[in-house]
């Protein structure tokens, strides 16, 4: 059952922190940063070396305002120090590792102490509370369990909250729906693309009304407001966006509240900066840049100014929900996912928004294929025709194709070849959806 905004009762997991005054938060962050900088300098050989090379002394960092004096950390640093070269504690102290399946060679590994897991669970629990859940709820988790942080992260959060976790992991949609119904799940967690797929499958099987789901925790990939509206409509739920990355902790770094006005960052643990992708200078609130995090509480693998490659903007204004936790906007994309096509920056999320603006006639399932023909970039967008719109008359399909083509041209500023494909033919992903295939050899 979807709860309307006017009927929503906001609840806080940790009101003292989530609604803390700016000054108090500044003091808390400063204290934590000073301690963390000293810690990494003394205990992480990687940072000792880095600080020494820069001639930086831990004492130079006196408050959070000095953060810009600190060096950056990149994914390449993590790769070079794989698997345990970034630790600030002996490996014996590590009680868990998680990672991401890097598509380019080695995976990115993150190490956690018992306290790190505790903080992680707490941050997810804050998010689940923000999504209206409490200890009586049953959270069906269809993020993958394993090295990927999605499944276990949500699980840790449910445990902290005292809620029931249903550890389904990804895959086998029919079984997911059966368990969702049989166990009386009241919330589910998975990527937005899989949520869409589940919604389609539930609608087709006619089980939507038998489900007791009220909230979806749907993050881990960039998506749009239009997609949220569609998921909410199909399943009659409220859907919340959760963000995280294993290097920093996993899901729970940020989540959005019922006002959906950006994702609240748990800034008492993860200090965010938004920087100009080229100059690396901080940008003003509301301006898009690369998100950079410093882990203020991490013991196992603390990271200083870690470059996420995620593009977003930040606002420090107090939210209508009462929280002062700064908000990052829904992601524009990653510096990695962005494709430069004939000189124009194109993000898959723009395509998604454009398709959803066409209403019911196409589904938001799409695939971008970039080729280079005669030294010219050619963007092909495969779009699924909705079953309801599908027609035996070619002129109707061609008319739809032209509409898609026009809206894409308007949104992207670059023309794309539209290729209509049959309903449900674009491969659904049970984890993060593959939205772009780049065949260019640059």
């Amino acid at each position, binding site marked *: 059952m979807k709860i309307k905004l006017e009927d929503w009762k906001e609840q806080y997991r940790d009101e003292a922190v989530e609604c803390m005054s700016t000054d108090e938060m500044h003091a808390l962050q400063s204290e934590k940063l000073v301690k963390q900088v000293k810690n990494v300098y003394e205990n992480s050989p990687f940072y000792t070396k880095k600080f020494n090379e820069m001639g930086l002394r831990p004492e130079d960092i006196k408050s959070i305002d000095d953060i810009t004096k600190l060096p950056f950390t990149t994914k390449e640093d993590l790769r070079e120090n794989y698997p345990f070269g970034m630790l600030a504690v002996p490996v014996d102290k590590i009680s868990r590792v998680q990672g991401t399946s890097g598509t380019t060679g080695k995976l990115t590994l993150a190490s956690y102490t018992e306290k790190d897991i505790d903080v992680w669970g707490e941050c997810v629990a804050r998010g689940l509370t923000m999504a209206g859940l409490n200890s009586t709820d049953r959270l069906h988790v269809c993020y993958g369990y394993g090295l990927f942080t999605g499944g276990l992260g949500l699980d840790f959060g449910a445990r902290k909250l005292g809620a029931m976790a249903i550890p389904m992991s990804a895959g086998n949609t029919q079984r997911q729906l059966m368990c969702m119904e049989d166990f009386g799940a009241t919330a589910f967690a998975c990527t937005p693309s899989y949520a869409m797929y589940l919604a389609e499958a539930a609608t087709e099987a006619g089980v939507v009304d038998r489900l007791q789901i009220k909230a979806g925790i749907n993050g881990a990939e960039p998506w749009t407001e239009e997609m949220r509206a569609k998921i909410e409509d199909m399943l009659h739920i409220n859907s919340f966006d959760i963000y995280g990355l294993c290097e920093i902790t996993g899901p729970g770094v940020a989540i959005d509240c019922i006002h959906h006005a950006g994702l609240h960052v748990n800034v008492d643990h993860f200090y965010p900066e938004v920087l100009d992708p080229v100059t690396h200078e901080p940008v003003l609130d509301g301006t898009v840049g690369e998100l950079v995090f410093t882990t203020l509480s991490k013991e196992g693998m603390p990271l200083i100014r870690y470059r996420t490659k995620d593009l977003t903007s930040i606002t420090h204004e107090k939210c209508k929900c009462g929280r002062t936790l700064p908000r990052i906007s829904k992601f524009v994309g990653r510096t990695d996912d962005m494709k430069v096509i004939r000189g124009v920056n194109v993000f898959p999320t723009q395509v998604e928004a454009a398709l959803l603006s066409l209403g019911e006639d196409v589904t938001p399932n799409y695939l971008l294929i970039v080729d280079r023909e005669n030294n010219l970039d050619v963007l092909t967008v495969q779009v699924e025709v909705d079953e309801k719109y599908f027609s*035996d008359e070619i002129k109707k399909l061609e008319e739809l194709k032209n509409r898609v083509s026009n809206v894409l041209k308007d949104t992207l500023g670059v023309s794309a070849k539209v290729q209509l494909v*049959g309903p449900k033919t674009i491969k659904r992903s049970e984890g993060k959806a593959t939205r772009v295939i780049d065949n260019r050899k640059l």
Partner: protein
Amino acid sequence: MDNTIKQLSIFVENREGQLDDVLKVLADNDVNIVAASLADTSDYGMLRLIVSDPEKGREALKNSGITAMLTDVIALRVPHTTGSLSKAIHGLVAGSINIEYMYAFANGSDAAAVLKSDDPEKAINILKATGFDVFNAKEAYESNIVK
């Protein structure tokens, strides 16, 4: 609708083996093809079939992940006489009926012209009034099967 028949319309993506896959599903499910027309565009085709059991054909294709739908069409009986099709179409045009597409097949001693129009009911009335007949579903689906 009375006197219209069900055409099986199939979206055929432009990739190797797709037509072969479609036909194999129908063959495996014992669905006989009476008539076929394949329209092509640069990136997909539209295969329009008159088959022995359109419902079964659609279900079998759906289960194989192939998009298909049933469309109401008219199977006009066209005697093998010069000018008969011309006369039939002339009547429809005079009655302001739009024809979206047409294809023909031999059906017993006559030919059948499959017509998709914007107003099939009116079209059938006009055809009957101008001395033409339409095949019913049973005749259209089965008449070409060799017993």
